[in-house]
């Protein structure tokens, strides 16, 4: 048995079975047609989301249901990681670090809100995810930290210590967490790229395709937010870009950083790549960011189809599972939130 087959033989069967059991498109339409959250969680209960339904029936809290979904999302990737060895495991671990970084960023934001801006964080702190990913990070210590030094101390012996401590000065000067968060993201992508380079050819190609997709999403989202919402300078915007993207080259991103409507620039740059991916159909009336995300969403679907339809014993199956699971859980989450906030049916449909 070849190394590639050996590495994925169990995982491939398991993940394909799971992918086969994902929620059907019809079900999502039924879910979006629910009149209340109660109805939606009942429908989810029948589809194996008992944990989510139980959480709602005990607490009435949709955000806790969302946390259950998030826990599932993390769990699905960590489970795949456990089934792999060596450099393959290291790559999936590098991908899964994303959840750790998101938790860390949330904790630091909460601390910043409370300690620096003097705002109340009581309603948010309870929803801080404390799901362990790879390293033991005391998020409560971060939220309750007395100083920046205390936060940096909490992160000792983790890859996050350097990006945090090295950007503290800039954060203090600018009064914003951007530089720290972007540095954490950039390091994350660099670690993923390094892990991908260690993979055998077939796996590496899949890994790099995922990184490219994620980096494009990240960069597009950053540029649009940084320009449209925060009004950052071109230098600040480009300093926050992450490596590994494929759809947008540095010139395009710079041009978008200068543009009045950066999203339009990016969609134009996608050109034919966005065709068939729903950019024009799904995003015609949507905001710029949604337009870009819709285009890149099409690319994700194309990748998933290619990986699932191709050679079965490779990283692509794991990454396809990761992408489809993430998409499913986020759609469920979006519908629950839309229902909770009493949004109109068409908005709920749009969440799909």
């Amino acid at each position, binding site marked *: 048995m070849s190394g590639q087959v050996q590495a994925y033989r169990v995982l491939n069967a398991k993940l394909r079975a799971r992918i086969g059991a994902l929620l059907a498109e019809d079900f999502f339409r039924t879910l979006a047609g629910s009149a209340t959250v109660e109805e939606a969680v009942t429908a989810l209960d029948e589809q194996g989301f008992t944990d989510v339904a139980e959480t709602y029936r005990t607490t009435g809290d949709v955000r806790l249901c969302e946390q259950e979904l998030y826990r599932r999302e993390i769990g699905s990737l960590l489970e795949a990681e456990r089934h792999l060895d060596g450099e393959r495991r290291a790559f999936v671990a590098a991908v899964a670090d994303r959840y750790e970084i998101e938790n860390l960023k949330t904790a630091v934001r909460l601390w910043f809100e409370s300690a620096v801006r003097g705002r109340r964080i009581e309603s948010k702190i*309870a929803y801080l995810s404390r799901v362990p990913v790879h390293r033991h990070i005391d998020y409560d210590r971060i939220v*309750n930290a007395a100083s920046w030094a205390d936060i940096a101390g909490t992160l000792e012996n983790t890859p996050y210590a350097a990006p945090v401590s090295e950007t503290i000065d800039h954060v203090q000067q600018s009064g914003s967490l951007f530089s720290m968060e972007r540095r954490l993201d950039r390091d994350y992508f660099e670690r993923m790229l390094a892990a991908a380079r260690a993979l055998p050819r077939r796996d590496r190609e899949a890994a790099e395709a995922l990184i490219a997709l994620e980096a494009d999403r990240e960069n597009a989202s950053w540029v649009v937010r940084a320009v449209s919402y925060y009004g950052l300078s071109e230098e600040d915007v480009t300093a926050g870009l992450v490596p590994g993207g494929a759809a947008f080259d540095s010139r395009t991103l710079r041009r978008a950083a200068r543009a009045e409507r950066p999203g339009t620039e990016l969609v134009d740059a996608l050109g034919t790549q966005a065709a068939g991916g729903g950019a024009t159909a799904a995003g015609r009336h949507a905001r710029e960011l949604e337009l870009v995300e819709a285009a890149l969403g099409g690319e994700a679907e194309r990748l998933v189809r290619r990986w699932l339809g191709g050679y079965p014993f490779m990283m692509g199956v794991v990454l396809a599972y990761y992408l489809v699971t993430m998409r499913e859980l986020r759609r469920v989450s979006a519908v629950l939130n839309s229902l909770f906030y009493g949004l109109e049916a068409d908005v709920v449909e749009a969440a799909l």
Partner: protein
Amino acid sequence: MMFTSPMRYLFAAVPDSHAEGLSRELLHLGVLHFVDVRELDRAHALRAEEVGEERRRIAEVRRRIESTLATGNLDLPDLVSTEMSGGAADVKRAEELTDVIGRQVESLRTRQRELQQQIMRLEELRRQVALYGAAGRAAGRAAGLGEGHGYLDARAGTVPRERIEEFRAELRAYPAMDIELRQTEDRVEVLLLTLKRNASSVAETRRRHGWQDLELPDTEDISQQMPSTRVEAKLESAREEQQELGQQAVEAVRNHREELESAWRNLRHRELELDVRSFFEHTERTVVFSGWVPREHARAVEDAVRRATGGKCYLRWYSDNEMSRSAHVNVPVRLHNPRLLRPFQMLVENYGTPSYGTVDPTVLVAAAYLVMFGLMFADAGHGLVLLIGGILGLRSKRIRGRTRELFGLITWCAVSAIAFGVLFGAYFGMQLLPPLWFDFHAVVSGHAGEGAVRSIYDILVITIYLGITVIGLGFVLNWVNLLRRGKRLEVVFDRAGLITAWLYAGGIYVAYRFAQSGFRELPVGRDLLFALALPALLLLLKEPAEAVFGHRAGAMEDGSGATTGGRSRGVAASAVAAVMNWLLELLEVATGYLSNTLSFMRVAGLGIAHVTLMTAFFEVARLAAGDGGFGVFSVLILVLGNALVIGLEGLSAAIQSLRLNYYEFFSKYFSGSGEVYRPISLAGRS
């Protein structure tokens, strides 16, 4: 039961005014598999009944009721034949009912949500208190508690009595714990625990409510006063209240159970009636509809239509042959077996729907499956455990549909395991009673006494005989199916036709003679010629026979090989192709049927594995006891071993039996191209 149910086709025209009553009658009968009349004859100027919008609305409200019932942990009621009060007013009432209950439940959820906020704040405080209790007590004592510890801010003070409730209410917005130390005439002494990060906001609250600082009590006193048990108690009470609210939500639904069930029945009834009416096509003053009815129900349907219309109807019945020939429509397939055999019917349906008019293999599958399972899982004790599990599953009201059939299958398998266990004298891996057939354990262990079955080879031979029987039965069923479908030529030349069966029988004969000679010599001369060579040569006639008797006639008439030269080249090419096909088919038949037959040896393999595993567990149990007897640990090993064997071997035996049925048996005769019979009945569109 041996064949799919014979069907008749009904075409009916009734006055428009009777449509309502008629749809109700047909629904209650629940045997008509409707066919859209326009699919048969597009020339008619027919207008379909508009039921879409009403049906959609009913389905939506019905689903809401189902969701509400689920919130109350209530199952759907049976759809008994209740009279409908019918119409849109019922939908509105049902909608109002779900709205009222929905609002009640929602208000309880809101309260649960508020409590959850409180719980989360208390949990955060608990985390800090735990930190204080574990590591910080000593440090707190040394540093002075007034400085606080970690992220906690502890302080003592007094608040005016009239302000204390308001003060407490405001503190609920923070992770905070206030402990009343004592009351004086006009003030309340309080020990207050908050988080440092809220220090400034809490200080403002304290100021507004007239807080006056006191010196903190001794650390030990505080430790006794405020430790985590108090937070725990508060948390516990909040959680209990939250659970209570959850229960109230359930009760809020249950209080309306009868109304909900009645509304659901009403809506579902109406929805199904509309399903029936969606097949009604209208002319100026009449309604026409058509569909398939099992022959034994044809009279009942006719009576029902006449009753509903007061005899003012036009009915015309067509036979299955007439319809499939003239209108080229598929006749729906209905498998009709006794309730007890439903689990096996499920296995058949899982594979496919047999073609109309062919053999319904349910009974034969039941027999083959149970023999295979029994041989692989022969232990009366293990069977008994399965039987208990199966019966418990069948008795559970929550288990429905296909899962219920699965428990039925487990029960059947249990009976088979018990029967074969008794035949082989196996009871939880022990021989409590002498075997009625042979001692499987003794044979596998190599110390079988006298008898027909003395070695593992004898067991393997038994399973090969079983395979030959099953495959032979497959041949016969194939011939029956082909004859019933009028494919006489294929009865002779099919892949499981007469000639192939002759070859298969010849192969078995040759193999038998070879084995009888001690695997030294094959039969020679006339035997070999008659057993193998003759049927093999006859198979060469397949393609010419098909060409002559019509299979290729159509193609030739279409123009292939239309010119003389072309035809001669076509004949030469066909001859070469026929020889090539013949060789390939011979190869396929030889390897295919050999592997099909040997495949049944897995039955012996799993049976032997079952025995070997049990023997191994007994050995381990003996070794664990050390003195040759059985101790508590040994019993534990045996219990776990039995559980493992029941779970794993049971699953393996069930899967392998299914595999043998699907691949070795069904592949010989089963043509799964039928359309399922789906009447509209009170059970839905089945």
